[in-house]
C-alpha cells in the first residue's frame, strides 16, 4: 500500500493521462446526473410539493391529470372513506402566459395554472383570492416581480402575481398557484369546451392510516377512482419514466467507459511492472499485497477525478443562472456518482488480477518457471 502511494507521489506523470480522462468522465457523469435530477425536478416538483400521501384520479384517466375528472359525488365518497384525514381538490391548466400588461406581446412563457385547496409546501394555507396567484420563483428570471400581472391564454385572462414559491415547476414549465375558483374561471374562459364546472381534476388526500390500504379502500368505496401514492403518481407523470431510463442508460454507459479506462490503464501498467513484481515476490511480497497496491492506486486516481467532478458540478451549479437549464445538484446524486466511479475502478482493476498473481517470483532471478 505504502509502495503504491509512494509511486503515485513520486511518479505522478504516469497517472496524469488516466486521471485526466477519468476526471472528464466524472464531470460528464455528474453533469448527466444533475441534468436528470434537474429535468425530473422541473417535471415533478409541483407533485412533490403536495401535502398528501395519495392522489385520486378518475378511473378512466389512465393516471393523467388532464384526462381526469372528479365530480362532487365522487369527492364526497372519497371523503367518507375511513383513514382519509384531509382532502383537497386539484386542477391544472397548461397555457401560454404573456408577461406584462401588453395584450399584443408575442413573448409567451409556458405556464401551468394550478388551483388548490390543501396548500402545497411553501404556499399560503388559504389560496390567494380570485385573480391572484403565487408563482414559481423561476418566473423571476423572466423579469416578473411581485405585483406584476401576467395574461393567460388566448383570452389574456389577467392574473396578479402576489408572491413566489420555490421548486414547484411542473412538466418543465412555470407553475402558478391560485384558488380552484381562479383555475375554473381561467379554464372556462380559455378552453370553452372543457369548462370544469364544479369538478376538479384530482384529489390530494392526507391519510392517517397505511396509505396503500386507504388507497384501496378509496377505490373500492367510490367505484370510479384510481388512487396512487404520491410517489407512484409522480413517477407516472408524462415523460418521467422515459427521461429516467434514458439518462440512466447514458450514465451506465459512462460508468462502463470509466471501468474500461481503468481496466486498460492498469492492465498496461501491470504489464510494465512484470519485472518489478517478480523482484517483489522474490523478496517475499504476496500477489494479494501487490494487487491491493493496484486497487489502491486506482481508487486514489479515480477518487481524485471524482472529487474534481464534484467540485466541477458544484461550480457549474453556482454559475448557472436559475432556470437557465434544468440542472440540479443534490448530495445523494454526487455520492452515487462517486461511488459508481469507485466501483467501476475496482471492477476495472479486476482485469489485472490474474496478471499480477501470475508473475513468477523466479522471473526475478532469470529462471522463470
Amino acid at each position, binding site marked *: 500500500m505504502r*509502495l503504491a502511494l509512494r509511486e503515485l507521489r513520486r511518479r505522478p506523470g504516469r497517472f496524469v493521462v488516466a486521471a485526466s480522462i477519468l476526471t472528464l468522465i466524472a464531470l460528464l457523469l455528474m453533469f448527466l446526473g444533475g441534468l436528470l435530477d434537474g429535468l425530473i425536478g422541473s417535471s415533478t416538483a409541483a407533485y412533490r410539493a403536495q401535502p398528501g400521501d395519495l392522489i385520486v384520479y378518475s378511473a378512466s384517466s389512465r393516471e393523467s391529470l388532464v384526462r381526469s375528472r372528479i365530480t362532487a359525488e365522487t369527492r364526497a365518497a372519497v371523503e367518507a372513506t375511513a383513514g382519509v384525514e384531509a382532502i383537497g381538490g386539484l386542477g391544472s391548466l397548461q397555457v401560454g402566459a404573456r408577461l406584462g400588461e401588453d395584450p399584443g406581446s408575442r413573448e409567451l412563457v409556458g405556464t401551468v395554472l394550478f388551483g388548490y385547496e390543501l396548500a402545497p409546501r411553501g404556499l399560503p394555507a388559504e389560496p390567494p383570492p380570485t385573480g391572484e396567484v403565487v408563482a414559481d420563483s423561476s418566473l423571476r428570471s423572466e423579469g416578473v416581480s411581485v405585483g406584476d400581472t401576467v395574461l393567460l391564454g388566448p383570452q389574456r385572462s389577467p392574473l396578479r402575481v402576489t408572491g413566489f414559491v420555490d421548486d414547484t415547476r411542473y412538466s418543465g414549465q412555470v407553475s402558478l398557484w391560485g384558488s380552484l375558483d381562479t383555475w375554473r374561471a381561467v379554464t372556462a374562459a380559455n378552453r370553452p369546451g372543457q369548462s370544469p364546472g364544479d369538478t376538479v381534476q384530482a384529489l390530494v388526500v392526507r391519510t392517517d392510516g397505511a396509505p396503500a390500504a386507504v388507497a384501496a379502500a378509496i377505490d373500492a368505496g367510490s367505484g370510479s377512482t384510481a388512487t396512487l401514492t404520491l410517489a407512484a403518481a409522480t413517477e407516472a407523470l408524462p415523460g418521467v419514466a422515459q427521461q429516467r431510463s434514458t439518462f440512466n442508460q447514458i450514465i451506465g454507459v459512462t460508468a462502463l467507459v470509466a471501468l474500461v479506462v481503468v481496466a486498460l490503464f492498469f492492465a498496461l501498467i501491470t504489464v510494465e511492472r512484470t519485472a518489478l513484481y517478480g*523482484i*517483489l515476490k*522474490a523478496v517475499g*511480497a504476496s500477489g494479494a*499485497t501487490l494487487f491491493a497496491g493496484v486497487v489502491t492506486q486506482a481508487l486514489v486516481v479515480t477518487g481524485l477525478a471524482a472529487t474534481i467532478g464534484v467540485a466541477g458540478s458544484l461550480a457549474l451549479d453556482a454559475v448557472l443562472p436559475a432556470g437557465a437549464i434544468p440542472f440540479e445538484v443534490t448530495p445523494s446524486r454526487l455520492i452515487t456518482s462517486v461511488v459508481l466511479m469507485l466501483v467501476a475502478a475496482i471492477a476495472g482493476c479486476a482485469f489485472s488480477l490474474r496478471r499480477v498473481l501470475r508473475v513468477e517470483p*523466479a522471473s526475478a532471478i*532469470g529462471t522463470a518457471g
Partner: protein
Amino acid sequence: MSSSPALRMEGVRKTYQVADEEIVALDRADLVVGGDEIVALIGPSGSGKTTLCSIAGGLLTASQGTVVVGGNDISDYTSRQLTDFRRTSVGFVFQSVNLVPFLTARENLLVVSELVGRGGRRRRKDAVARTAELLDELGLADRADNLPAQLSGGQRQRVAIGRALMNGPDLVLFDEPTSALDSQLGDQVVKLIRDEMKDRGTAAIIVTHDDRITHYADRTVRIEDGRISA
C-alpha cells in the same frame, strides 16, 4: 556460530518442460552449506547455478529431492508458504540490478517489511534502526535518500546486499553479483559480502564464473550439466 547447516540439499532434481522436450537443469544434486559457511558456486553458463540458487531460496520447487533451509524442510511448501519463507528466512542478490526505481536506498531496504504491513509500530522502528545500521556498514549512509538512478553500479549492488540482509536470513544467495561491475569494483563488492557474512555468521552461496573471487569463499563447489562435483 551455529553448527546446524544453513542448507541441506539431497538428491535434488529439476527439470523444465520446453515444448516436448524435458531439460534437466539439476540432477541428483547434494549440497550442504554450514551455518556460517560461504560457498562459491562456479560452473559454465547453463550448468544449473541459477536453478540451484532458486531452489535453495524457495523461488522454484524441486521436481525431486529434499531441500532443508535453516532447519525447515521446504520441499513440500505451498507457494504461500514459500512467499513467507522467502520474506523471513533467505536473502537474494541478483545478477542484474533490481531495486525499486522510485524508492530511495533507505526505502529499498524497508520495502519488504512495509509490504507485509503487519507488526505495527514496534517492528517498524526495529526495521528503521536496522536499515540505518546496514546502510552505515555498507558505506551508504550519505546515500540513504538517493534514488537508484542517482547511485553508481557498485552502490546499487550494495543497496541490494543491504536489502538481502534486512530480514536476518539463514542463507543469502548471490547470483553473479559482480557480473555487471568491473573487476576492481567486483572485487570490492565480494570482499564486502564476505565481511558482512562473517560479521553476522550468516551462510551464503555466491555464484560466479570468475575464479579470482573464489579465494574469498570458504569452499568452492563446481557444477556442470546440472551435476555437482566438489
